[in-house]
């Protein structure tokens, strides 16, 4: 595994020399790195600088251009101090920004007062929330550091050294000083929904889970400082052995005093086996000798870096009374107190006594996290007069042209087609906004300008332009257009080392339009589909509007020669050959590839059951014959070297038929029969072509039996009470020893209790196994007798109710719309006549009866044949079907649809 921290240090030394950035120039790294034609680069620049906002041109340019950040809520998102600074001097505040500065003809003083007025205006727009910073959590930040450098942030932004110094500033999308700019809340919200503030999606949505978003945010804001009383860090684990060994830091933050209030859980208790370290300064008004009285299991106290107390924690005893003294000077004395919540009746009492200070707990006012004052960010009080002036500036300086979520009329500028490359914004003239373009950038724009207002691109150009605009080329190469730069390469890591570079680098996009199906391309680009779970770098989500055209674009541009697709005469034979080849004893594809969610023996290569939904058949044939043609470093061997089959006995050794056989077999997708030798190690049970069962502790007593059916619907039958307890759809279950949990969704739940009962009083409750009716349900005549499996492994449950024997069989079916449902057949067998009993079929909040059945909440239940039902009122209603059995065999058919 690569060690990002180590790499960071290495790259720090290598690239520091290359670090020679003048602060005042626009940085658009994708334009720098792309091998796009200069004219197209100029066009991308015009789009990225949103020239069209002021200089009118055709709609194509307008829709491709990058919209500026939405500002209507900027007052709660960005620190007003930062706003003021940034508006006055954008390039100084955030080197590399595309935001232009105010006209150079203004004095610095004028710029500052204008910036202040605009800030008042912007903050006045926002009534919802006040900008407020929080103390960062250093424990989360450490994890955030790792995430920032692995999940893909550093593909565009600069990696950082352990001190936070940005290492590749000149080739990275700039971030500026985020601690000055954002609060934890606002940055997290932005990272979670970047498109809502920056609708053009250059910053994509990485779909990072909430907890990881928190961590990355804490990392990016780790230099935020806010005043407080005491800083703390907590640890969990075997803290009875101290802070060494198997103990993990949990979180960090600020608290008011040396009590445990901050750390109590929902039950009012500090979780056992927690260690807490408090750090800060203690203010002493009268110098002298102070005595500390503590009650705790274990911990240590340091004052002015001198140990006053130290008691090793132990899980084998209770709290101890401890005393220590220290000579303290007037003013701020550094204090560090480590406390262990362990042992019997763990608790903390912390008191101090000294000159003029009678024995008591220390109030928060005597603690501070720093002995130096930390400035407080005060919310900006909007001055309406200033805001009004600011609004005028916002219009007059043309801010409103780009930040057009704020509606206001403004004056017109020359049309794009009329622009000269040596005038206005492009000159260093004094009256225009100041973009700080490099001479090269100026030249590129000059090249593109004559045609920029109306140009038609070839499909090829359009694809390449989009890949550059969205910096796809930071991660993917495509015929030399871009690709991962050598200095960023080490940050691309993965979890399957055995796959080599393929296990850590995002796939190249060369030929992708001839490789992937359109539906899968769309799934990846706009729905966040993801197959390569072993890549640590996450494929982000872009919007349909921004990149949707690539789905068609790739298809138009890419083509490969046509492979020979053989005609399959006997589909069954072909499928079976595919099955044999995939498994152990065949080509053993599953030795490296996952299959239907089951991990492979080794490499963890792509799950095979998605093959036909992802890939074009033509490409599959070409690839299988010679994988190295498409990936020079691929570890997948060729099983048909020189077009000759290695396995001569399969399908007469016909190469095309063999490859086609794999395709026909895999085209069954999740229903493909599990190949021989497939691992059963996964705790997630997957259903393929046969029913899968599990049982034990879980969603229905300790004797529940879970059954997952091939049509991807499942049920739990409780063998303790002989009743159906759950129906659901999608994934089946996960198991752990003798327990299982349901997965999937659309769950229908049935109440606990026996299925049949001779209810004599309609107000009586339906019997179920309580904690103390120990012989239930045998005392109601029930006896479970097991089950038998048919050829498809579907179980028929067997049980007795008195002298009635019951066979209970569920079968999965698809309706005319392809929706799965259960058909249940209950066969009753009795020798003598049976007195009427009720079958409680279901219960729910709302039960209505229809033509051929009932609707019980979201469950539609049909009975085949004429059967009456009784809806019993109650807290939850019950559907009871009266049953009278003649001697012999009686069958009841039910259908469960939901």
């Amino acid at each position, binding site marked *: 595994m690569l060690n990002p921290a180590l790499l960071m240090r290495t790259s720090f030394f290598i690239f520091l020399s290359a670090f020679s950035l003048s602060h005042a120039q626009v940085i658009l790294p994708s334009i720098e790195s792309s091998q796009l034609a200069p004219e197209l680069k100029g066009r991308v620049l015009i789009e990225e600088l949103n020239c069209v906002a002021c200089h009118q041109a055709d709609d194509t340019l307008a829709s491709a251009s990058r919209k500026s950040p939405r500002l209507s809520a900027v007052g709660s998102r960005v620190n007003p101090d930062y706003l003021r600074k940034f508006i006055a001097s954008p390039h100084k505040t955030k080197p590399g920004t595309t935001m232009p500065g105010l006209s150079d003809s203004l004095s610095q003083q004028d710029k500052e007062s204008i910036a202040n007025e605009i800030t008042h205006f912007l903050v006045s727009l926002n009534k919802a929330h006040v900008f407020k910073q929080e103390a960062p959590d250093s424990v989360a930040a450490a994890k955030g550091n790792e995430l920032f450098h692995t999940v893909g942030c550093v593909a565009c932004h600069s990696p950082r050294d352990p001190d936070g110094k940005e290492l590749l500033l000149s080739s990275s999308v700039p971030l500026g000083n985020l601690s000055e700019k954002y609060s934890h809340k606002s940055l997290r919200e932005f990272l979670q929904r970047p498109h809502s503030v920056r609708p053009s999606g250059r910053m994509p949505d990485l779909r990072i889970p909430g907890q990881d978003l928190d961590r990355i945010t804490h990392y990016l804001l780790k230099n935020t400082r806010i005043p407080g009383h005491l800083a703390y860090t907590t640890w969990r684990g*075997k803290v009875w*052995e101290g802070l060494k060994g198997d103990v993990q830091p949990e979180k960090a933050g600020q608290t008011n005093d040396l009590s445990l209030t901050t750390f109590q859980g929902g039950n009012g208790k500090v979780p*056992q*086996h927690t260690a807490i370290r408090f750090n800060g300064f203690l203010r002493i008004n009268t110098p002298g000798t102070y005595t500390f009285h503590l009650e705790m299991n274990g911990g240590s106290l340091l004052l002015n870096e001198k140990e006053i107390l130290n008691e090793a924690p132990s*899980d084998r005893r209770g709290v101890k009374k401890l005393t220590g003294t220290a000579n303290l000077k007037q003013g701020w004395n550094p204090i560090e107190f480590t406390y262990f919540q362990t042992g019997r009746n763990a608790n903390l009492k912390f008191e101090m006594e000294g000159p003029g200070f009678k024995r008591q707990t220390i109030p928060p006012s005597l603690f501070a996290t720093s002995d130096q004052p930390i400035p407080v960010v005060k919310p900006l009080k909007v001055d309406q007069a200033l805001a009004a002036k600011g609004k005028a500036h916002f219009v007059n300086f043309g801010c409103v042209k780009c930040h057009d979520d704020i509606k206001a009329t403004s004056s017109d500028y020359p049309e794009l087609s009329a622009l000269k490359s040596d005038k206005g914004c492009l000159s260093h003239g004094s009256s225009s906004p100041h973009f700080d373009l490099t001479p090269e950038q100026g030249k590129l724009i000059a090249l593109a300008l004559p045609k920029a207002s109306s140009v038609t691109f070839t499909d090829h150009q359009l694809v390449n332009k989009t890949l550059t605009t969205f910096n796809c080329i930071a991660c993917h190469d495509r015929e030399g257009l871009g690709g991962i730069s050598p200095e960023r390469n080490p940050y691309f890591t993965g979890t399957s080392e055995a796959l080599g570079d393929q296990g850590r680098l995002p796939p190249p996009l060369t030929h992708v339009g001839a490789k992937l199906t359109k539906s899968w391309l769309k799934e990846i680009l706009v729905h966040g589909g993801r197959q390569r779970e072993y890549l640590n770098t996450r494929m982000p989500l872009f919007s349909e509007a921004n990149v949707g055209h690539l789905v068609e674009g790739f298809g138009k541009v890419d083509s490969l020669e046509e492979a020979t697709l053989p005609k399959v005469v006997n589909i069954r034979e072909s499928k079976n050959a595919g099955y044999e080849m995939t498994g152990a004893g065949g080509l053993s594809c599953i030795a490296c590839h996952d299959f239907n969610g089951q991990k492979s*023996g080794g490499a963890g290569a792509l799950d095979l059951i998605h093959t036909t939904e992802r890939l074009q058949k033509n490409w599959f044939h070409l690839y299988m014959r010679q994988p190295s043609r498409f990936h020079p470093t691929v570890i997948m061997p060729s099983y048909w070297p020189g077009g000759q089959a290695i396995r001569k006995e399969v399908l007469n050794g016909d190469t095309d038929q063999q490859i086609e056989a794999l395709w026909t077999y895999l085209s069954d997708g999740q229903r493909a029969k599990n190949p021989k*030798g*497939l*691992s*059963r*190690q996964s705790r997630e049970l997957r259903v393929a072509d046969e029913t*899968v*069962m*599990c*049982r*034990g*502790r879980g969603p229905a*007593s*300790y*004797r529940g*039996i*879970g059954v997952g059916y091939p049509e991807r619907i499942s049920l739990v039958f409780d*063998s*303790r009470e002989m009743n159906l307890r759950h129906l659901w759809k999608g994934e089946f279950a996960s*198991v752990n*020893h*003798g*327990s299982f949990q349901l997965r999937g969704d659309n769950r229908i739940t049935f109440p606990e209790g026996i299925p049949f009962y001779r209810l004599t009083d309609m107000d009586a409750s339906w019997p179920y196994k309580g*904690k103390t009716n*120990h*012989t239930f349900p*045998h005392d109601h005549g029930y*006896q*479970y*007798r*097991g*089950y*038998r*499996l*048919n050829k498809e*492994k579907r179980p028929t449950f*067997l049980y007795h109710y008195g002298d009635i024997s019951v066979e209970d069989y569920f079968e999965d079916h698809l309706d005319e719309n392809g929706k799965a449902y259960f058909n249940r057949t209950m066969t009753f067998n009795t020798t003598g006549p049976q007195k009427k009993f009720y079958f409680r079929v279901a219960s729910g909040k709302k039960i209505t009866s229809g033509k051929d059945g009932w609707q019980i909440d979201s469950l539609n239940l049909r009975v085949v044949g004429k059967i009456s039902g009784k809806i019993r009122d109650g807290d939850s209603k019950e559907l009871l079907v009266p049953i009278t059995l003649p001697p012999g065999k009686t069958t009841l058919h039910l259908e469960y649809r939901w």
Partner: protein
Amino acid sequence: MVNTILKPLTLGLLGLPTISLAEDLGAMWGTAEAEAEYYPLVEIPIPPEVPMHPGSFEILPDQKLAVGTRRGDIYVLSGVFETPPNPTYELFASGQDEIFGLSWKDGALTATQFGEVTRIKDTNGDGSADQFNALTNNWGYAEGHEFAFGSKHDPDGNIWVALGLSGSYKSHNLFRGWAVKVTPDGKMIPVCSGLRSPGGVAANAEGVMFTIESQGPWNGSCSLKHLKQDHFLGHPASYNWYPFVEGLDAPALEPESNSRLQVEKKRVKELVPPAILFPYIKMGRSISGFQLDETKGKFGPFENQLFFGDYTLSLIMRATTEEINGVWQGACYPFREGLDTGIMNVQFTPKGQLIAGGFTTNRQWPVRGEKPFAIQRLDWTGKTPFEIKEINIRPDGFIFNFTLPVNSAIATDPKTYTLTTYTHNFSAGYGSPEVDHTEPIVKRAVVSDDKLSVRLFIEGIQESHIHDFDLAPMMSAANKPLLHTKAYYTVNEIPAGE
């Protein structure tokens, strides 16, 4: 530190604090290297795709081995008894609860799983089971601790099931803490109360059924307990189920805590004392499945003895039983240590090998063997180790039987035999230290003509005590030292004079 097989299995469920791995598991016997000369360990390879946490074994026709697992699978293995083993794994059944009992009879496998006893059969001969007849599921099963361990079929076709309590102290659900007998037609007959956390269930050479019990409340150490019909085996939490047994009343008295077995067995007439006490750590910490050696000498000189696995210490022990005054008792002996994982069960093979297998549990409980799961095989090389083969009691001493002739000069010297005795506090608290130590006097040792046994005359045999022997100076006639010098005889009864 507490000992039980149940702890490792359920710590996760109960959310108890995990135990430090640094914990000392106790000294090893230190004999592994010497043992390997007679009983080398052979590893049975497990393919990576097979989730194999073995809980029970059974021999099938055609030299196949069935393995029941914690995950509820039954695998059928061929080629396990070959040298070197060349196993293939076929999945016979899945979707059961944790399987800690497997027995083949009349073309079907009967599995004891936590919730039921199930007769599992492949009726269409495709190698995969299709019939799962629940013989009974009529015991309570509603808490994490409530395990069930099953025997092989007895001669009448019954399966005996030992049902652990709901934890260490309580019995919340029907027949927890009892042993029950399940007949071939699915009747469940309660046998006896008083169990705490039993492991395996098996019969001795006389066909009498025993279970292995874990140290804990009312159990000073692990022990082998006789499943005697209508009797009580020591832990009173399961008294509450007597009203559910037709024609059997609860014992009139409950045992008193902080007493001694020898006192309480006289007070509570239904109380059957453990047949063999296994002194804690010296002889196992979490003894699990066991089986009788019926290999007719193929496994060496220990025909008709019982062989036990131990979970925590990853070792194998053996024991011999005898019935004195209607009460079973006997001795236990070290056999083989240094196995790879926590041993859950053992099984003799038709070739006279001993299969041992098990697992460790997610670092929640210390196990000496470091593999997360394993199946191993002990093969006898054909060389006879010099061992104490069996100890039998006499009114005034013991007879020591050896596997090889002894050096008469050493064997006749009473100083060759160091003997201490001790017992445990019989209490509701957890486990017990060894208490009431005595040092009986070995007065005389008489070697038999064939030099294969020694008659010891002893003054001060203690009823209800473990008799802890150390024969360190003993040498064989060929002047070889004993492979294991220790043996532990539990005296419940002293036979009347001859």
